């Protein structure tokens, strides 16, 4: 039970740290990393929820959510990186 709370609490702390970093830092890469840390925080919470005690099969639903969430986060990050690279190319040429 303690481990579950520690894990979930760490997730919440990661979320807040990521949010702070997203709001404070201007560069695109830092913002993207911050967003991914926030996402990681949410996934921590979900994984902590799935835990049902030692030797008991964990709840599969949150695990499925985390997997889907990772896919979504990767594609969103990729699009943001492409747009950012486009901007940087133009600035170099212009």
């Amino acid at each position, binding site marked *: 039970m303690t481990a579950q709370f520690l894990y979930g609490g760490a997730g919440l702390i990661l979320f807040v740290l990521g949010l702070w970093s997203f709001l404070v830092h201007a560069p*695109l890469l830092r913002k993207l990393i911050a*967003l991914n840390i926030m996402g990681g925080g*949410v996934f921590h*919470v979900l994984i902590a*929820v799935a835990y049902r005690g030692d030797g008991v099969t964990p709840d599969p639903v*949150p695990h499925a959510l985390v997997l889907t969430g990772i896919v979504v986060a990767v594609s*969103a990050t990729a699009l943001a990186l492409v747009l950012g690279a486009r901007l940087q190319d133009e600035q170099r040429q212009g």
Partner: protein
Amino acid sequence: MYSNLLTDPLVLCITLPLLGAALTTALPRHAVPLGILAALATCSAAVTLGVDVWQHGALRLVLGGWEPELAIGLRADGLAVALALMANLVALGISVYASGYFRDPERMRAFWPLWLLLWAALNGLFLAGDLFNLYVMLELLGITAAALGALTGSREAVSANLRYLLVGLLGSISYLLGVALLYTAHGTLDLGLVARAIAANDRLFAVDAAALVLMVSGLALKAALFPLHFWLPPAHANAPAPVSAALSALVVKASVYLIIRLWLDLFAPITGLAAAMFLALLGAAAVVWGSWRALRAERLKLLAAYSTVAQIGYLFLFLPLLAVTPPGPPRDNLLAALVLMALTHGFAKSGFFLAAGLVQTNAGHDRIDDLGGTAQRLPATTFAIALAGSALIGLPPSGSFIGKWLLMQGAIESGQWWWVIVVTTGSLLASAYVFRVLSRAFGLEPTPLKFVTDARAEVPALLLSLVAVALLGLASGPLWTLLALRAGGGA
């Protein structure tokens, strides 16, 4: 029910545009006919779904033969169907317009798959029955919307839409943490089951309230509720015209729909008057500030984008009125007025943006002060702008006239008279910015003989604006019947 899953209109509304996106990706040479075909098919599926719900009441569908707690569930009640019908008709109009809009073949090939994906996400969002699928649809919507908005490739468009993407991601991650909290507390994601669990268990008030704050603030960011609207005007004003129309009329509306859905269905037991009042105050600020900035805008598309900020604001004014009105005909009127305003704005703003896009291509710019003679060169388009404008102001017989009337009536009846001042100020400012455009549009050139110059571009804008002004105003009665078809709760 399982045997004919593939042909169920509830499923087809999402699978048809997905199929269209796959086909237009695979056969880019035939993107336009395939895209139009997918648009027509999707729209007919949505209309069939509307007829089904009208005849048989709210629908629910559990996919894949799983138990409701595990399966992907779809549902369609009156509110979802009303918005989905609007979105699909508007999207069909946008598709027809877009088929002739892109001159560059590369852009055109990039447009169709993204646009059909966005359409699938929209329908999925209106029809999803559980919190996590709503998140997936929300992300798909945000990603495709940002990619489409950046399609012109200009530096302003790319940087505005990169910001839009980041803001959208922040919003959906906040929503996702809310979902995680709700799952922790109640062990289910199904909208109906979570709603019952929240109503039944007031010991978990703190967790539910935290989830409410996270989800609503994340969605308010995506819905551009003042003061979180900063990203909207540059992103919407710099996108290609058909994309601007979709972003302003549909994408923003989807987040508002979700807020209303969560607020009224899910969190109804824990949302107090104070919280509703807070959101309505932000809405009031959006009405005044958005209308003021629209009046001061130098470009036509920027004007339309700020007007969206204002029009979204109106929808939030309904929340404190709904909070104090007990169930019964007055509350039904308020809810119908809220939906009617959202629908009218969907049709009017898409018509406005499509017409503005044609003005821009025709004149080579969209500076409002230099638009003299547009009324003579593009009479049908100017007429569409005037019609859409009158719906944005809320002149009779438009749907927003009825909406604003019921809103003011509700405000006076529930003793919250101050919202009347907000609505009046917003409408006055709206008439000022609409007439400012129209007064500039007339020039000294001779009046042409032809009313319509480019049918494929002008007719969709004209029809969408006409629906906002005439159909939604004069024949809005069925909306009351449709909204009375509520889902019967959980699985």
